[in-house]
């Protein structure tokens, strides 16, 4: 499919007052509300061309349907990467990842996905093509429209092409798996962000045994990823191990083989579902409150007699909490009440995964943001007939 064909499909929908649900790799299908009205499906799968690979400029332009895996494979020979860290990279698309506003665990080091976007071509609700930015790395000519489209959940337009800044890949990666007895947890987590070489990613994990390596038995575990030059890898390793040792952690196991795969499994766990009997939330808050936020949410789930798997991105303060029950019916009897109680505790909690039939009844986007009235006005100005993903985004945008 061409961008023009996609534009024609939207123009027709706009004319005929019908609407579309936009689908990329469908890997984040657990995000957002169901469409408010019956819609056609608009797939970006055919928009899968690398438009321009410019390694000498450290930039690349790709169509919205290109998968993150393809993008990574294109960049790998140049020694560069675009660390978006969205789950299921083999299927997740560039456009979908950006539209969903995905935030990965390495953003504290490499920046948010939006910070790498230098240009875009968007198909607006009436089928008009609008370009923003370009292929230069600094550009202040007009509003930064590309960043507005990032995180708009496909409700302002369809990202047909995205131009990106690429980053040099780190020379070395190394992973560390650590058992984390409760009495060591607070200190262990705290030392990570003050290390001389802060980890590229670090997770405190409880559960997720089927997805992520390591058996935590009754204790949680830490999974830490270092990314740095060969020159400082050993020093960084020593620092990390001795800091964790001082925090009282019993043993730090070094993993050098399959580091990338291990990292990807942790990312995939964000959206891993247990049949129809789980719902996964993301709660983001200040880094120094992440541990307590996670403990509070876990404790709440236990009060509802829900099972929990949790993953806390301790470098960014994201808490990923999967609640589940014996079967879909058992979960269905509690999940709405749990959802209310969780939002009392963490008003901005959002749902990121889950196939349970009651998911549409949950407060999947959390509390309305302060600027919501302006967001609604923007939606109306860009898509007055509600062609694009009607009602799927926060507050029914």
């Amino acid at each position, binding site marked *: 499919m061409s961008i023009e064909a996609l534009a024609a499909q939207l123009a027709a929908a706009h004319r005929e007052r019908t609407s579309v649900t936009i689908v990329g790799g469908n890997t984040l299908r657990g995000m957002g509300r169901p469409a408010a009205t019956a819609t056609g499906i608009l797939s970006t799968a055919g928009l899968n061309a690398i438009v321009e690979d*410019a390694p*000498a*400029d*450290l*930039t690349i332009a790709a169509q919205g349907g290109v998968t993150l895996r393809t993008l990574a494979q294109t960049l790998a020979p140049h*020694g560069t990467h675009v660390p978006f860290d969205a789950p299921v990279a083999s299927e997740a698309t560039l456009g979908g990842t950006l539209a969903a506003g995905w935030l990965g665990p390495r953003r504290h080091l490499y*920046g*948010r996905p*939006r*910070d790498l976007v230098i240009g875009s071509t*968007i198909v*607006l609700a009436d089928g*008009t*093509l*609008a*370009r*923003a930015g*370009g*292929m*230069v*790395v*600094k*550009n*202040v*000519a*007009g*509003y*930064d*429209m590309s*960043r*507005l489209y*990032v*995180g*708009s959940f496909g409700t302002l337009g369809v990202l047909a092409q995205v131009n990106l800044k690429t*980053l*040099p*890949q780190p020379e070395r990666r190394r992973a560390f798996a650590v058992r984390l007895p409760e009495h060591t947890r607070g200190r262990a987590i705290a030392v990570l962000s003050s290390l*001389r070489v802060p980890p590229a990613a670090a997770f405190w994990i409880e559960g997720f045994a089927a997805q992520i390596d390591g058996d935590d038995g009754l204790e949680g575990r830490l999974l830490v990823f270092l990314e*740095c*030059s060969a*020159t*400082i890898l050993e*020093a960084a390793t020593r620092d990390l191990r001795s800091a964790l040792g001082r925090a009282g952690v019993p043993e730090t196991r070094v993993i050098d083989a399959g580091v990338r795969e291990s990292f990807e499994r942790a990312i995939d766990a964000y959206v891993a579902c247990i049949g129809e009997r789980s719902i996964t939330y993301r709660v*983001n808050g200040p880094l*120094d409150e992440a541990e307590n936020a996670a403990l509070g949410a876990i404790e709440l789930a236990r009060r509802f007699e829900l099972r929990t798997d949790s993953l806390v991105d301790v470098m960014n303060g994201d808490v990923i909490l999967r609640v589940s029950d014996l079967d879909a019916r058992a979960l269905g009897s509690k999940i709405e009440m749990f959802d209310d109680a969780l939002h009392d505790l963490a008003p*901005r909690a*959002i749902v990121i995964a889950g196939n349970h039939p009651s998911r549409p009844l949950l407060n999947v986007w959390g509390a309305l*943001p*302060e*600027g*919501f009235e*302006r*967001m609604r*006005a*923007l939606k109306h*100005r*860009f898509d007055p007939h509600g062609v694009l993903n009607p009602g799927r*985004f*926060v507050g029914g*945008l």
Partner: protein
Amino acid sequence: MLHERLIDALGADAVKTAPEDLAVYAFDAYTTGRLPSAVVLPRSTNDVSAVVRIARAYDEPIVPRGAGTGLCGGAVPACGGIVISFTRMNRLLEFDPVRRRARVQPGLVNLELSKQIASSGLFYAPDPSSQKVSTIGGNVATNAGGPHCLSYGTTVNHVLGLEIVDERGDVFQTSIDDTGYDLTSALVGSEGTLGIVTAVWVRLLRQPESTRVWLATFPDVEAASDAVSAIVANGIVPTALEMMDRTAARAVEAAFHAGYPTDCGAVLLIENAGYEDDMQACESALAAIARERGATSWRAARSQNERDALWAGRKGAAGAMGRISPNYYLQDVCVRRSTLPKALHAVEEIARTYRLTVANVFHAGDGNLHPMLCYDKRDPSQVQAVIESGNEILRAAIALGGTVSGEHGIGFEKREAMTAVYSTDDLAAMARVRDVFDPQRVLNPEKIFPSGSACPEVRPQSA
């Protein structure tokens, strides 16, 4: 009466109405606009709200102004109105070293922020060359860059949230952690056309463990540009990669005695920061690349003083131009890094055609050119030559796939050039955002968007 209403609201000392006072606000560092009806100096967000309400009642446009160091008229009244100057809203409101962030008023001077928090080991990364005087609010309006945005990113990457007074005088907050549309990113770089920034949450970074500065000289700018491309293509993104041609290096050396060689064709100033061991490895890699690309000399700053001296020369380069020319026009275009040699060649040709001296001091690592065209404003033919060659440089950049502003903004000086980069549909999408935030076009009117009938949707909607 407008003046009385403003004085009632803000006090007599916060309102300027005398023609000789107003005249100052018709200018920025380069452009000239129209006299404002009044200039106000608010002390608080409430003051700003009050001014906006009064302005609306009297049908006066509103022009926010930081330090007035802009070069394209962003802070200059294009059609009169009330100038809101933020010089008195210059405080650091909150500093949270644990969460590495600060909340500041828009009138706080950029460098002042990093100075006030220096003892914490943190710093604010965006560093436009004007940072000794330019304000955070002005930097937010233009999404200011600076030498170090090569690795740290421009202002938008360092803004966590904003407090905004809207076109009705109401206050709202944005945060990049909000669900929904990223209003913060839309507002940063909007040159005061979408709302008036009254507070900014900024992200702070840990000061690097080790900072190195090197100076390489080359026989000509082409060789230096090749070296820049080679550095980037080798996967090294230093914290800064700045170039100066012979004309600029001579002016700087005459003014600052920074230690720049004056007998070479181009000077490359390289800074990198990070872990001490990495910097040593980086030094050998950079020196090898420079040598391969024909560097005639290579020098490492050995102390903080030497580093500061090399940087002082770079940051003061525009000021040093006074040594060689009564006036200069500073252009700002950005091209793909790999097209730098072509772009520099084009600039040189254009200057030759118009018989102008050009000096180049620029952010080579980003492909962000800053040709300075020397002229004497008392000679009308030279003024005309500068205007025409400035436009030709824009066209040359566009022809190379570049853009008409890398970091200074569009203001009113460059707004007609927007049609050369963007289609009517592209601009109409931007205008939709404007329609939502400023339907009556009262916030900094006649900026960014081209005038004229080429873009019907760009004009205000009929109410």
